[in-house]
């Protein structure tokens, strides 16, 4: 189906991208003023016995020449040993993956709903483009997107949580958790507002792309040909327009899925939701470089993988690209 050569090429590029990321993090880590060790151990205690420093150095291979350290670093990364956080003193990789689950609670429903809603409204809006309803929706979307995400979050908290008291002010569980333990309905209750907001935002992005896609499809000659066959408007929409308009969406939504994992720094921070986004803000406040680098590496991995997946998917779906052409 797809040419193996094309696939190999794309894999190489993806690998190269990831290596660039690792190299960047490696050099930054090593260019930090002071020693990685000193910085790390400082978080443990004030006076560091020299013996401990030596042992640590040796264990982490910091007494090796730079190139050897680089190789060791790469091997470590591939094995999941991503260093230790300055602030928490815990290994970075398990920390991040632990928080990832929490982020996913928000992201999965929001992404699915957001894509669905955005695509449907975008398709409809594009189909009726130029009409009053389309323009109304389009203008509304522009306004929504112009307002920053975190502001929407703050306003939502203010209106729904503070004034109306429909939802909690943030966090992922109520005080009752101290006595009753973590309950799923409680967590879900806390998740509703952040999920709603994320859905909102993801939908506007999808709306815009789908609408543009639909508009360009409508102008194509094969739509006129279909009309000349005597197909009615609904028939044209369902049999020809939709399929062609959805094609570019596959690529874009795949890519979007990974892009939003980090995009929700804002929403998680405002709602104090203990996911990766919130972790990012905390790490930033404490200037915790290893943790931030870990988050960066994870995000790079996900983004690169999703772009690769998007390429593969689109070449599988679009009959024109099945030959595996470049560009």
């Amino acid at each position: 189906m797809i040419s193996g050569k094309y696939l190999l090429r794309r894999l190489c590029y993806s690998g190269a991208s990831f290596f660039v990321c690792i190299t960047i993090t490696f050099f930054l880590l090593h260019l930090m003023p002071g020693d990685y060790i000193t910085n790390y151990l400082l978080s443990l205690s004030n006076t560091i016995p020299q013996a401990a420093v030596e042992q640590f150095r040796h264990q982490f291979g910091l007494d090796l020449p730079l190139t050897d350290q680089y190789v060791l670093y790469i091997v470590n990364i591939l094995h999941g040993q991503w260093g230790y956080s300055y602030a928490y003193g815990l290994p970075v990789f398990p920390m991040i993956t632990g928080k990832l689950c929490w982020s996913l609670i928000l992201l999965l429903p929001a992404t699915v709903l957001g894509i669905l809603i955005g695509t449907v409204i975008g398709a409809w809006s594009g189909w009726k483009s130029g009409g009053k309803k389309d323009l109304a929706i389009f203008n509304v979307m522009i306004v929504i997107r112009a307002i920053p995400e975190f502001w929407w979050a703050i306003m939502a908290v203010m209106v729904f949580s503070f004034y109306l008291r429909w939802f909690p002010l943030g966090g992922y569980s109520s005080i009752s958790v101290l006595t009753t333990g973590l309950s799923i309905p409680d967590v879900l209750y806390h998740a509703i507002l952040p999920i709603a907001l994320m859905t909102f935002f993801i939908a506007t992005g999808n709306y815009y792309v789908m609408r543009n896609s639909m508009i360009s499809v409508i102008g194509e000659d094969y739509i006129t040909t279909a009309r000349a066959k005597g197909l009615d408007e609904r028939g044209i929409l369902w049999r020809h327009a939709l399929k062609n308009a959805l094609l570019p969406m596959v690529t874009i939504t795949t890519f979007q899925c990974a892009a939003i994992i980090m995009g929700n720094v804002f929403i998680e921070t405002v709602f104090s939701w203990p996911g990766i986004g919130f972790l990012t803000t905390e790490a930033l406040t404490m200037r915790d470089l290893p943790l931030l680098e870990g988050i960066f590496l994870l995000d790079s991995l996900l983004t690169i993988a999703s772009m690769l997946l998007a390429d593969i998917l689109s070449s599988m779906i679009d009959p024109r690209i099945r030959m595996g052409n470049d560009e």
Partner: protein
Amino acid sequence: MGLIRISGLRVAFSTCSEEIRAVDAVDLDIRSGDSLSLIGESGCGKTVMGMAIMGLLPKNAMISGSIRYGDQEILSAPDRTMQQIRGKEIAMISQNSANALDPVMTIGDQIAEPLLIHRLLPTTEARSETLRLLSALGFDEPETAAGRYPHEFSGGMRERILIALALICNPRLIIADEPTAGLDAQVKSQILRLIKKQIASNRTLFLITHDMGTASFLSTRIAVMYAGELVEAGPTKEVLAMPRHPYTQGLLASLPSAGLHPIPGMSPAPAHLPKGCRFCARCPSATDRCSTLHPPLKETSNTRQVRCFLYD
């Protein structure tokens, strides 16, 4: 019997600053069994004529006049009525652009589509009809071809697919808009022979083209269009042998076989049409009257019409 009777058709498009009169008070009859060519240069309004018959003009077009199909008025007919007619009774072979066919649908499905839309045949019979038509149009392995996608075919094959689309429901009238545009000479002659065999011999054909050669090969009558109006009409052989209107004469003189003498000047911009005869500025036989008065279309004999003061 007049299959299509166009009377006083006017199509204009309005842009922010000006009004463009694409078709200006055209009367045209297409008789059943005829094959009529509409000849003119790009921008003279001939494609608009084809679209007007099909009811496919864009929403911002200002249309007036009448087009009768049999005894039915179709110019002002509602969309639903037109959808019954399109593809089934009047079909169009659209210009063969790169995107005239849906890229994500197999050509077999696309050709069978009109049959299914108009509920003429159930799916399996529609399929076999598609294969039969593909075979008749020169596809060696219709089964395999039907499962392929448009981009897998060359320009000439795609043109055949467009012809198949038009023929599948056995329509009474076929409108062909520049069917050989962009094809090289050998493919072009194959397609023309195909059209003559399949269409022109037993159906009514309305051919829109700028190519005199195509017109003379396929049609029994010719109508010449210039700047939105008809300037000459008549049986093909007569018009080509003895062209009356200076524009037609100029067109014939500009053919390679006649010596490639181009007509000087350019056709008038549709937004700024001159007051008198529209060909006046380029006409070698123009008189003073031509620049101030607009000549009407007159019948010079039983079968011929000319719009020119020279034949008053």
